C-alpha cells in the first residue's frame, strides 16, 4: 500500500498522519515532513499511526531522526499504532523513546 503523510500544526503541536507502509522507498517523504515540522519549532510532535500497516528498518531510522531533529525538549507522541508496528517498536526498544497512546488524548497532548 502506498505511503502518504499529511501534516498540520496548531498551537505548537505538529501533527503528522501516516498511512500505508513505511519502508525505504517511503522514508524520504516522512523525513521531509519531519524536517518541515521541525522548522515550525513545535513543542510537541504527534505521529498519528492508525493507518500505518508496516514499518521497515528505514521507518525506524526516520523515527530516530525525528527524535534527534526535534531535540530532547520536544515530546514525541505515537498514537493508535497497529500491532505489527507496535511490535517493531517494542522489539527495538524505541517505545521507550516516545510516548505511546492508544488514541489522541487532547487533555494530555495539548496541555502545554
Amino acid at each position: 500500500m502506498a505511503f502518504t503523510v499529511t501534516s498540520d500544526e496548531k498551537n505548537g503541536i505538529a501533527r503528522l498522519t501516516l498511512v500505508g507502509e513505511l519502508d525505504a522507498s517511503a522514508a524520504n517523504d516522512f523525513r521531509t515532513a519531519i524536517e518541515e515540522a521541525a522548522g515550525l519549532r513545535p513543542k510537541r510532535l504527534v505521529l498519528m499511526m492508525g493507518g500505518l500497516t508496516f514499518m521497515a528498518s528505514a521507518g525506524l531510522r526516520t523515527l530516530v531522526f525525528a527524535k534527534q531533529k526535534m531535540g530532547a525538549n520536544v515530546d514525541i507522541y505515537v498514537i493508535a499504532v497497529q500491532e505489527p508496528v507496535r511490535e517493531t517498536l517494542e522489539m527495538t526498544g524505541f517505545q521507550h523513546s516516545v510516548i505511546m497512546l492508544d488514541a489522541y488524548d487532547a487533555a494530555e497532548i495539548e496541555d502545554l
Partner: protein
Amino acid sequence: MDRVDIYPTHEYQGYHFRPGKPFPFGATSVSGGVNFSVYSSHASRCTLVLFEKGEPQPKVEIPFPDAFRIGNVWSMIVFDLDYENTEYGYRFEGPWAPEDGQRFDSSKILLDPYARAIGGRDVWGVKPDWNNAYQHRGRLVYDDFDWDEDHPLETPMEDLVIYEMHVRSFTRHPSSGVKFPGTFAGIRQKIAYLKELGVNCVEMMPIFEFDEFENGRVHPDTGEQLYNYWGYSTLGFFAPKSGYAATGKLGMQVDELKALVKELHRNGIEVFLDVVFNHTAEGNEQGPYISFKGIDNKTYYMLTPEGYYFNFSGTGNTLNCNNPVVRSMVLDCLRYWASEYHIDGFRFDLASILGRDPWGAPLPNPPLLESLAYDPVLAKCKLIAEAWDAGGLYQVGSFPAYGRWAEWNGKYRDAVRKFLKGEAGLAGEMVQRLEGSPDMYAARGPTASINFITAHDGFTLNDLVSYDDKHNEANGEGNRDGANDNDSWNCAWEGPTEDPGINALRRRQMKNAFAVLLTSQGVPMILMGDEVAHTQFGNNNTYCHDNEVSWMDWGQVSSNSDLLRFVTNLIGFRHAHPVLRNRWHLTGRDQANCGYPDISWHGILAWHPDLTGSARTLAFMLSGANARGGAVHDDFVYVAMNSHWDSHWFELPQLPSGLQWRVAANTGAPAPEDAFSTGDEPVLSDQGGVLVGDRSVIVLVGK
C-alpha cells in the same frame, strides 16, 4: 558547494559507481551511495556481487576496475542502492596453490569480513535452502541509534558481579513469560529480575553471527536436530546474531541489540561479550568457503609449511591473530563494538591462541594483546582472557597482561570445588584463592582473577552437587565429549532423588559455593540459572542443545525461591561491604592502625588456622577499617567454612569493644534463617564462638 566526490564516474549494467575510499573497510553509507572496501594480500582481481535480498542469483556483478585498487585494497562507491533490500558479497581471483596456502576459487561468493549485518539465518532454526550458493550474505547497516546520554558504565572492576548468560537460553523456555522468547528483546523484559538479583554485569556467550545449523548431528534417541547452539564458531566478527533478535526477520537486529545494551546500562548493568577470535566457521581444508578462506587464506589462517591448517582451537583452523593484517581486523572489530554498541568488556575465548606467532609458537610479547591493552578506544573496556587453548598452552596466572588483562581463574574453580566436596589438604590453597590468588596475580591485584565455580563449559552448580560423572549421551558423541575431571560430588546418589537428606545436603552445598564465591576477593562470576538450581541433567557440554537441557526454567524462580533469596542476599552483602572488594591485594598487616590486620586467618581456634594436609576447616576475618587500604570504612566480616562431614565449634576472634558479631548467612540453617538482608542481621547469641554445621559456611558481620 556540492562535493564532486559524490558523483558517479562509471556505469555498469545500469549501476553507477566511482572509485571508493579504502578506509573504513566494509560497506559504509556515504552521501548518495555505499562505499565498499575489501582487501586481499594475494588476490589478482575482485568483483562486487550484489543481490536483491533473499534472491538466489545476483542482480549484478561489478568487476573492480584496476584503477580502483590501492595497494591490496579494492574500494568502490555504488550509488542509488536500496540499502534495506541489498545483499552483497565478493568474488576473488588468485592462485590455487594449497601447498603454498593459496585457495582462491572465483566460483565462490564470499562474505565481507567486515560485514556489519549478515543475512541468511535471519530467524533462529529456520532451515536454509542448502542449494543456495551464497549462504551468509553481507547486508548494509546504518549506524544511527538513539543512545540519548548512554555510554559505557565504567563500573570499577572490583565492584562487578558477572552473570554469564546464553542469549537464547535465558528466555526461550515457555515459563519465561516474555513476549519475544529467546531474543535480545526477551532479555530486556527480564532486566528487573537481574537487577533484583543484584548482578551488575551480564556476559553474553557469543553473539557474533554464527550458523546454528553447523552441527550436523541429531539426538541419538529422539532424532531431533542438534545445533551449533553456543555459537563458538564465528561467521562474521562485526555482525550480531540475527537469530537472537526478534527483529531479525526485519533486519533490525542491530537496533534491538543496541536497545538492550542501552536498557541494561540504564539499570546499572554492564555488558560483556564473549568473543571468539581463535578460529572461524570455515573449518579446515575440508570445510566450506564462507569468507576468509577465499579472500586471503594465507593471511587469515595459521598454516603448516605444507599449507594445511594448524588446529590450536580444536575446531579445524586457527585465526592468524598476530599477522598484522588480522591484528588490525581484531582491533577494528573490538573498537567497533565498544564505540558503536557501547560494550563494556570482552571475554576472549581460548585467548592463549592470541599470543601465538603465525607458526604457532607462544610469543613472549604478543603484539595483539599489547595493542588491545593500550588501545585508546578500548582504554576503559574490561579485557578478560580464557588463558588457555586447545593446543596445550595453559597461562592461568601468566597470561601477558600489560596491566589490563584479567583471567578466568580456572585454579580458583578447581580448588573451591575440591574443598567444598570435602577433599583434605586444600586449606592452604584456599587461602590464596579466597584472597584473590596473590600467588598468581601478585602485581596485578585481585581484580585480575575472575572467580567462578561454574561456567557454560561443564556442570551447572546443581549438577556439580548431583552427579559424579558426566552424562552427555544426548550429544550424539558416545559420551566422549566434555570434561572428565569435574571435581563434582553427587552427595551419595547419581542424579535426581527423593531422598530428603541428600537433597538438603545438595542445597547446602550450592549455598556453600555461593557463600565462598561471593566473599572471595576478586571478581565473582555466576552462571545463568545457578541461582535457581538449573539442571542440565548431568550433561557437562550442552553446546548442541536448543531444548530444556539448556533453557532456564523460570518456574524454578518460585520452586527454588529459598536458594534465589540466599543468593540475592549474599550479592547484596557483597555490594554492601567494600572490604570484600579490594582493588589491591590484602597484606595481613594493619595499614589503618586499627589493631587488626586487613585479613587474618583462623580455624577452629581463633588466630590459629589449620593448613595441614588433613584440614577441612578454615576461617578468615576482614577488618573494615582496612577496607581498600584504609580508604573507606567498613564493618568486620568473618567467614567460617567447614567442609568436614561433622559439625565444628569455631572460636571467634574478639571484636573491639562495643561491636557485636551478627549473622549474615548460615548455610546450615533452614531458610529463611540461612541468609539475612543487609541491616537485618541478628546478633549472634554467643559472641565467643559459633557452631558451624557439617558441610556448612557461616558469614558474620561485626558492627
